[in-house]
């Protein structure tokens, strides 16, 4: 089913546009990592945002208490201290591109830009 769909889209030159969309997605996801590398203040601010996000998420699951502090600490070590750039990229991809539907705007913009009519 999907194989036929891809073949059909490829015949209409859609594969190149899909590649453009993937490149746009990679660029948008890479931007926060570059900004964190170039500007140390942005690095700190993004880490603080991630800490707040993790604490709020865990408190939503477990409520206020010692287990929340412990789980938050473990998650902060792995996600904010050890793999901060990956977490920042995932945060941008998930919250801005998926939850706020920004990726739909990117697809819409590329589609209108490649329009033949």
């Amino acid at each position, binding site marked *: 089913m999907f194989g036929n769909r891809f073949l059909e889209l490829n015949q209409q030159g859609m594969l190149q546009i899909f590649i453009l969309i993937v490149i746009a997605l990679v660029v948008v996801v890479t931007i926060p990592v570059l900004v964190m590398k170039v500007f140390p203040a942005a690095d700190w601010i993004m880490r603080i945002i991630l800490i707040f996000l993790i604490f709020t998420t865990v408190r939503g699951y477990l409520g206020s208490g010692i287990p929340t502090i412990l789980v938050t600490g473990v998650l902060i070590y792995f996600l904010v201290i050890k793999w901060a750039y990956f977490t920042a990229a995932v945060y941008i991809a998930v919250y801005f591109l998926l939850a706020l539907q920004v990726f739909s705007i990117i*697809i819409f913009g590329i*589609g209108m830009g*490649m329009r033949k*009519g």
Partner: protein
Amino acid sequence: MVFEIMPLMFALLSIGEFFSDMVFVLKIFVLLTIISWVIMHLGKGPLAIVLIVGISWFVLFDAFWFFGGTYVLMMLLTLGIAGIFIDLFFVFPGFAAGAGGSGGLPAEAKMSSQGGVNQRMQAFKAKPGRARKLPPPM
């Protein structure tokens, strides 16, 4: 020879470390979901604790190969990745083909693009006997 392949070994070890760390973080989130779900239904009694331990053992250690991917898929669907796929495979081809534009190619996606909908509406209205008869003016 050993020193030449050391960067590659470090890269592979780093990838493995990253993967294992992310699996651990994913397990923590799955555990949080289980705890939240059980407490929401049963409160914080001893039965809830037994159930949390049992479900966690099964989900995290026995069948995580299934539940890990299922949890990620569920989270992505919750965040609306299905809309992205609909945009990519149905709405976007219609726009790129010039749907609704003047002089463009006919719409590729007939069911979801606005151009396809307009064409079907015009064809529907053009059929004899299909147009709804309005009541006579009072």
